[in-house]
């Protein structure tokens, strides 16, 4: 899958409470409602600024904190096509794959706000069209690419009935 879009840049240690605050996430299973508040405490108007297909780009330890899937879902439903970070917190990383939100671990240093990227998930390559540079992503374990390829873990298990390694 090849994705193309503009970047929205955040810093290090963006935690799940920043992604979607506890004020909202317990109230509803309506992810469109939650998506309206994504990253609100860091950037109050972020949800409105997003154009469908944008990438979130961040530094280290993105998604640290709680295990709630409302975090990847709020990002996904806000129209973000993938998250690129230098490193991810492990539960969040797993949740993104399980919910079919592509996550790309790569050296994000140097990517600027508004840069246009082309991300080839299969090859694990990232082209910064604005800066004319190329990056390599850390490969996904095969079980994770299989789950992502089917759009998430629910679809994967619906199709396979159990884990196939």
């Amino acid at each position, binding site marked *: 899958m090849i994705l193309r879009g503009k970047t929205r840049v955040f810093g290090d240690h963006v935690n799940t409470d920043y992604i979607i605050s*506890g004020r909202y996430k*317990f109230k509803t299973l309506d992810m469109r409602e939650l998506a309206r508040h994504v990253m609100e405490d860091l950037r109050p108007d972020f949800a409105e600024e997003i154009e469908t297909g944008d990438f979130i780009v961040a530094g280290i330890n993105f998604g640290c904190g709680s295990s709630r899937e409302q975090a*990847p879902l709020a990002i996904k439903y806000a129209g973000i096509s993938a998250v690129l970070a230098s*490193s991810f917190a492990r539960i969040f990383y797993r*949740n993104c794959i399980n919910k079919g939100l592509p996550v790309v671990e790569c050296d994000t240093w140097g990517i600027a706000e508004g840069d246009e990227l082309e991300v080839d998930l299969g090859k694990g390559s990232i082209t910064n069209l604005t800066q004319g540079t190329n990056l390599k992503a850390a490969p996904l374990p095969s079980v994770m690419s299989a789950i992502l390829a089917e759009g998430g873990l629910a679809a994967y298990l619906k199709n396979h009935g*159990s884990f196939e390694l």
Partner: protein
Amino acid sequence: MGKTISEKILSAHSGVDARAGQIVVAQLDFMMGQDGTSPLAIEAFREMGASRVSDPAKVAMVIDHSAPSPLEGVSRLHALMREFAREQGITFYDIGQGVCHCLIPERGHLSPGDLMVGADSHTCTYGAVNVFATGVGSTDLAAAMMTGKLWFKVPQTIRIILDGALPEGVCSKDLALWLAGKLTADGATYMAIEYEGEAIDEMSVEARFTLSNMAVEMGAKAGLMEADAKALQWMREHGARTLERVESDPDASFVETLEYRVHEVEPMVAKPHTVDNVAPVGELEGIRIDQGVIGTCTNGRVEDLEIAAGILRGRRVNPDVRLVVAPASQRVLLEGMDRGIIRDLVEAGAALVTPGCGPCVGTHNGVPGDGENVISTANRNFKGRMGNPNAFIYLASPATVAASVIEGSITDPRRYLSP
């Protein structure tokens, strides 16, 4: 070559010779969800086309995060959980029973050497009783309920040896914060931690839960300890099925072995807005406090309430400060009542709330106002964590919180040590 605790438990549950880095599919002994994560797990379970959980005796759901429900939207989600629990015949803990991480080990669901997952990041708490326990999301919980299994990447392990004894007035929470400062918030990402040493041997099992609880604040997947006689005794008293412990081999391979002498650890405070932003209490004395919180899965057990009551007994919470006390479980509340601890706290001016997460996660029970400072025994102080992004959360031990709410400002609890 020998194996770590993680490698042994994951080998025993997957039937393969599991080594760090490998991916295995392993059979689970137990799985748990709370009210922030279970509704999505139930939805995912249906989406998977599942109709029955693979083994109802291995599943528990807990309503602890927003308990009792503060809003009708939450009530709908709670109703969904109750209905699912009834239909599937799983164990269900409704409002007032307590925080999942206090309940699950307390009610006999775990034995040493078990493999379990919880749809809550602080599931690593049970590492203190030799259980490989890790947090997952709702969809993983759904997959676990459906298949009884889950895939794991066998983690590498950091060994932390804690020599010596903690000084008086210094709690395991101070040690947990001190370690978070040393390792930082992502110092153990993707890895397991094994804690050992004299300081652990000396600690009560309750104090050990506090330490393992905060392993995830350094990014760790599990915060493991071996089960010594004390832990086995505790597990026996709390209904464990078996009492076989799992230890790491002398020639096991660790990514790193860190050895610390803990005699110099002081009461520590994490400053807003990150857990690893720590300082000794002395550097922060005098900072105004508007609200104190004693409770949560980190420090809401009997021993914690007792430490706080030891300082507050016969004294008063400062009139400019609110103190919220949330016992971590109904049993904690009952024992605290029997032993007069609850009375001491309430007489000192505490507001007692329902056993559960209390104000920890910002849904109810004491959302702070704009510009207010909170000192809490919880494990996270992220901006907005308690429901208001314009408040400031400091994390500390029950002793430091108790001393601070008396003074109305951050205070070294060693001033209140009885001679």
